[in-house]
């Protein structure tokens, strides 16, 4: 076994992990969002919405396991620090994910009288999971400080992340559904889009104020120029999406994929921004990725596997999406 100590491994792994988190946020983001949006007043629409994510949510959630797994494998000490600090929100998130995951299966198999209850459990579980994830992100960004300001920020972050997930969920529905539900989804997308935009601005400002190091990184020199195209791009995307959503449904469903693509882009931009702010720290301002990385021979062992397996995973993920391409229909099995 080759075990030469090479120090690009921590960078590769933080990259892989970041990618997994991003893919998770996008993929499970939309199906969590759809879960949160489930309307209480319309069982048919609920059915359709759940059908739209049915074939995907399971694999989507696996990206979380992958991301957490990579953190655990590559940076075990950071993992311990982070998740001991986030013990309770993690437990709540897991409870939410459990509730939601099982509701999906139980709702079609239980007595008809129980079906509504399982759907509400699905909605509630999704909400619990998104709120906890947002809260955890907020705690992470504020380096797990126990001040009122930091806790307040975490609550804000919980709401914004939920709004973001709802937006991408609604955008997914615009793409995957038709008729009344599509129009309703467009409305949801419009409101959550605004809420998310406000959230992003708030998070960015707080983020800059919360720590001098981050402020320096963004505004302390020539790199401040980067802010201009990023801001312009984000602004342009928001406005375009907003104007498009007003016009749904377009003739021949023109551009139904537009909001979803925009959502993906916004997610990527925000994520890169966060990554840039914190690199090279894995626990904000305490531990860098190089300090936290585990034994290089273990990293190498898993890296070889990842290089072989990841392309396969991406391949059959695409295959799976192709099989279920197009507007959602009833799921039969």
């Amino acid at each position, binding site marked *: 076994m080759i075990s030469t100590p090479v120090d690009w491994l921590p960078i590769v792994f933080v990259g892989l992990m970041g990618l997994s988190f991003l893919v998770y946020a996008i993929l499970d983001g939309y199906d969590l969002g759809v879960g949160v949006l489930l309307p209480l007043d319309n069982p048919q629409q609920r059915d359709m919405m759940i059908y739209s994510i049915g074939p995907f949510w399971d694999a989507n959630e696996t990206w979380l396991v992958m991301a957490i797994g990579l953190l655990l494998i590559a940076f075990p000490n950071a993992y311990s620090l982070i998740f001991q600090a986030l013990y309770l929100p993690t437990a709540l998130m897991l409870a939410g994910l459990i509730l939601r995951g099982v509701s999906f299966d139980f709702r079609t198999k239980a007595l008809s009288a129980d079906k509504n209850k399982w759907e509400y459990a699905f909605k509630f579980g999704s909400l619990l999971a998104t709120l906890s994830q947002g809260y955890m992100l907020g705690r992470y960004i504020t380096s797990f400080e126990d001040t009122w300001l930091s806790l307040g920020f975490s609550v804000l972050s919980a709401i914004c992340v939920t709004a973001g997930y709802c937006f991408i969920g609604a955008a997914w529905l615009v793409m995957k559904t038709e008729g009344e539900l599509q129009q309703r989804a467009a409305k949801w997308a419009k409101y959550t889009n605004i809420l998310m935009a406000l959230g992003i601005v708030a998070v960015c400002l707080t983020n800059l104020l919360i720590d001098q190091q981050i402020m320096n990184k963004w505004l302390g020199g020539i790199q401040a120029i980067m802010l201009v195209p990023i801001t312009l791009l984000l602004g342009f995307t928001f406005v375009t999406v907003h104007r498009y959503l007003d016009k749904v449904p377009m003739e021949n469903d023109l551009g139904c994929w537009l909001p979803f693509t925009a959502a993906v882009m916004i997610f990527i931009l925000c994520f890169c921004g966060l990554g840039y702010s914190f690199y090279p720290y894995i626990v904000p301002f305490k531990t860098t990725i190089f300090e936290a990385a585990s034994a290089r021979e*273990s990293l190498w*062992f898993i890296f070889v596997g990842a290089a072989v397996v990841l392309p396969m995973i991406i391949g059959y993920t695409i295959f799976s999406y192709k099989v279920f391409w197009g507007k959602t229909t009833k*799921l039969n099995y």
Partner: protein
Amino acid sequence: MLSRIQFAANISFHILFPTINIALCWVLLFFKVRFNQTQDESWLRVYRFWVRIFALTFGIGVVSGITMSFQFGTNWPGYMATVGNIAGPLLGYEVMTAFFLEASFLSIMLFGMDRVSNRVHTIATVLVSFGTTLSAFWILSLNSWMHTPAGFEMIDGVAHVTSWLEVIFNPSMPYRFMHMLLASGLTTAFLISGISAYRLLKGDNKKSVKQALNFSVILAAVLIPIQIFVGDLHGLNTFKNQPAKVAAMEGAWDTETHVPLLLFALPNEQKRENSFEVKVPNMASIILTHDSAGEVKGLNDFVDKHPPVAPVFFSFRIMIGIGVLMLIFSWLATYQYVIKKRYPPWLLKTGIAMTFSGWLATLAGWYVTEIGRQPFLVTGILRTKDAVTTTPPENIAMSLTLYLVIYGFLLIAYIRTLFVMANRAVVLEKSNASLTETGSSVEPNIPLADEGEK
């Protein structure tokens, strides 16, 4: 202590579902292949009924598995700090090679029948089966390594790998893996025979129900002797590598020759002796050393380094006891099927009673092996108490309560739903009712697949 309870609760709950799924998936593949060969619709009906149970089981297995993967870090930081270099990559490989495979092709297996060709659908079923088994392989590799560590060196209290091959194929791995696969097969066989017997007794006389019942009965009858054989090998392996565990299983306090087999006893750890012994002379020596004068190490050789005796001792007897019941039932049932061509009602009722016997035996088996490893988390390297979290106990108490409530609730919901599904299939058969009258608001299409014989 709370962390231990929480992890025990989580792992006990989680293990129930993969135990069914590992084998159920291959069974489904068998049904599917039989359908492909014979074009007999009733095989498709069995497939469709059980694939839904598979989906349900899979869903619970996945979410409880995610919970477990978090707990390694949250509740057992010392574990990752000491052996993370080994545990991490093994878990990582499980996620990368197995988890994604299962999750991605499961949706095609479940919902893809109308969207992909029959061949692709069968391939998806193969891949999901392969994925679940591969998943079990990695997990059992890690678990076995914790029992019989190999292929590593300790540097500054941290395990570093010297040979991945030795780590993965550590001494107890092949036995444990086989034992678990067979346990899964038996659990599934008894689940299928239990539910099918239930449907039959309720008057559901479809060919598909009988096919499932016949199949499961024969499967169990074939697997149980193999399991006893593999279990014996596994025991010998444990005897070699973890004598303290075997001593606890046998309730043997002193190192002796001519050790009797205790059928029953009450081990008393304070006095370090047993009361109410019911024993077969020399038998334990014969089983473990294949020699009536063979020496078996006693617990007193491992003071402070042996597991709590009573739980291991009793769990072991429960496992064996259920195994014997399984053997009797499956052979009786096979006799009825092959010779008499019919199942008497009392046998069907016994079958229903034994629906979840596989679960009990598997849990008991896991308690034997896991409690049997104590006081170590990783044999000889890491004690359980050194690995546990420093998270405030009230936080753990909160999360523990949360999990217990959810798990208890889910377990009841799961078992109830299995019988609801069975009942629904029965009702449909009996009244041969139109779809609109029988719960079509729940699932318009499914019952179609289970309509009675034409």
